[in-house]
């Protein structure tokens, strides 16, 4: 029987695609709320880091979420450290928080979880399909969902290392690198490799970290620059530095901008950490539902693939394809043996001691 003119093949395909897309989204919605879908807000606000970070999130998660739900996603580029007190104050005063979702470092997010300002995300339907990396350590349940891991690599300018990549942080003590190195201004990412470089052991963290401080004191004599993510890219671009301990995404971003840059994990190892998403308390039931739906959609394989292709980082969903050039890269660990040279310290230890480490690092570097 011929197909009726009013229901032709094109319309059949269109309808099938629509039903399929709806099905994918419904599957990604929080399971306990799937039956009764509350009214949609016109927009949700997601705090994000700028530059390549927000671009990747937009392409991988936000645009797809908007296409599926019709809810506009606003990216608030306030720094994670600066939004934190605002969110804490809003929750403490019973006000609606300024953002719906915080894209945060797991350490920072854990502070918020310990303070009790995070909504529980345990009911997200996509969590069972994630790897162990998604589960935050040191807190009950899922006040945060980790969404990927990253490595604080040793990024370097190949022309400054004609004999090959630096094998150790000790290589950076060469006088020719005086004033040509950079670290984060609180030393994050460098404390743990410095502990090893100084002759100490990782078991000495946090109680016996003198080796780290002694090595950082040696490094201070090299007059390194201290900055934040955007500074590293700028400094590499402007030829101010030859090497930096930074997140691989920044090095990748600089490379995409045409900067001659490479990265390595030195003998001392490199800090591995995670970022995650969480929802502050104080939102209406409807906003909370759709904020959870956003995070749930960030845990689908499709979203993770696009999002993390942009960041060049390993996700928390099995079966992702490494971005071009990242397969086997030390900054893209996926197999257990990839993690052997990476340093992972429990989030709880980091949260409880981070302030002291920052303070000690600053005391040395600003002295």
């Amino acid at each position, binding site marked *: 029987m011929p197909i009726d003119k009013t229901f032709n093949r094109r319309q059949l395909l269109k309808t099938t695609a629509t039903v399929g897309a709806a099905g994918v989204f419904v599957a990604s919605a929080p399971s306990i709320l799937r039956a009764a879908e509350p009214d949609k807000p016109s927009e949700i606000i997601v705090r994000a880091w700028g530059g390549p970070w927000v671009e990747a999130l937009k392409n991988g998660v936000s645009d797809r979420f908007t296409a599926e739900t019709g809810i506009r996603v606003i990216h608030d580029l306030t*720094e994670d*450290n*600066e939004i*934190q*007190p605002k969110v804490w104050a809003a929750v403490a005063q019973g006000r609606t928080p300024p953002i719906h979702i915080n894209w945060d470092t797991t350490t920072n997010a854990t*502070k*918020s979880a*310990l*303070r*009790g300002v995070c909504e529980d995300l345990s009911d997200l339907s996509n969590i069972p399909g994630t790897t162990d990396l998604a589960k935050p350590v040191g807190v009950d349940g899922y006040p945060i969902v980790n969404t990927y891991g990253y490595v604080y690599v040793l990024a370097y300018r190949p022309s400054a290392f004609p004999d090959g990549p630096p094998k150790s942080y000790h290589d950076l003590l060469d006088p020719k690198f005086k*004033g040509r190195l950079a670290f984060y*201004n*609180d030393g994050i990412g460098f404390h743990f490799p410095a502990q090893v470089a100084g002759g100490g052991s990782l078991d000495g963290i946090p109680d016996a970290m003198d080796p780290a401080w002694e090595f950082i004191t040696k490094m201070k004599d090299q*007059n*390194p*620059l*201290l*900055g934040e993510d955007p*500074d590293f890219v700028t400094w590499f671009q*402007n*030829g*101010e530095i030859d090497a930096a301990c930074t997140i691989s995404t920044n090095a990748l971003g600089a490379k995409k901008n045409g900067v001659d840059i490479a990265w390595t994990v030195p003998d001392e190892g490199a800090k591995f950490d995670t970022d995650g998403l969480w929802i502050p308390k104080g939102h209406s039931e409807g906003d909370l539902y759709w904020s959870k739906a956003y995070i749930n959609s960030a845990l689908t394989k499709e979203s993770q693939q696009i999002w993390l292709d942009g960041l060049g980082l390993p996700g928390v969903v099995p079966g992702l394809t490494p971005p071009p050039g990242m397969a086997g890269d030390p900054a893209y660990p996926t197999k257990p043996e990839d993690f052997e040279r990476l340093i992972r310290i429990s989030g709880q230890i980091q*949260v*409880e001691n*981070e*302030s002291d480490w*920052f*303070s000690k690092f*600053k*005391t040395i*570097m*600003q*002295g």
Partner: protein
Amino acid sequence: MQRSPSSYPIIWRVMDVLETTFAAVWPKGGGKFTPYLMLTPAIVLVGTLVVGLLYIGDSSLRVLDRSTFLFSDYWTLDNYIRALSEPFIFTVVWRSLLGAVIVTIVTLMLAFPYAYIMVRTPSSFVRKFLLIALFLPFFIGQVVRAYGWLIILGNQGIVNDVLGLVGVEPLRLLFNYPAVLFGLVQYMLPFGVLMLAPALTAIPEEIEAASGSLGASWVKTMTHIVLPMAKPGLIGAGLVVLTLSLTDFAMPAILGGGTQDFIANAIYDQFFRTSDQGFGSTLALLLIALGSILVGIIFAVFGAGTLALDGSRK
């Protein structure tokens, strides 16, 4: 003939509105207190700041519990003890203080001749040129100006490009203490000139001419006539530059390369990096105390009357 109300000075009309409003609220009238209503906006503004300071004072007496990231429900002086015992804080305070003093001295040394020439030049072209040169950077924000210096003084900046033409290897001109002070002086110069210019304008040219006609050299006229008479302007400019430099955030952050923090940067770190608002509040109050002590010392040495603040109207 009765004058039109619109021909009265605006201050009279404001007072009329205030008196009418006050009479409506308080029919018996406030008598001689009515004019003090004009102080209401200032009192509200200062009062708001005082309330904020009280909150900061309260926070400074509470310590952070890192297992819950909540503040103690009791008061303690631990944050103050920590602030006074941490070597890093001492380093930052000393760097800020020394920097503010150096910047103030250098700024005044540069601002005085600039303001003097701007005020005394007979050429309107020169005066306009100096005014434009003064105000153009004034309209550009501090952060933009600091980034401008990154472009000019960077390893691949204009200065190093020029030096490269004569065979000089690129020099590290940025990310050190002198770079921060340089940026601060450049930022503070318009403030200094603007504070000095009225004081110099108030010195009649005839006095300088009289000094010269009595045989004083130009140097003697400057040191014995102009500088003493410009003292209110110098003190006022010095106060503004000193307090602004002491509390500056952007220049140390951008031109210091992360290694030249001032007190404001340390406060920022406590509020936004370590989530310890209690300790951040303590540092903020110490900064306020330090600034107040400096201003107090200046008043004690030079007298509040130097700034025509002695209440006399001669």
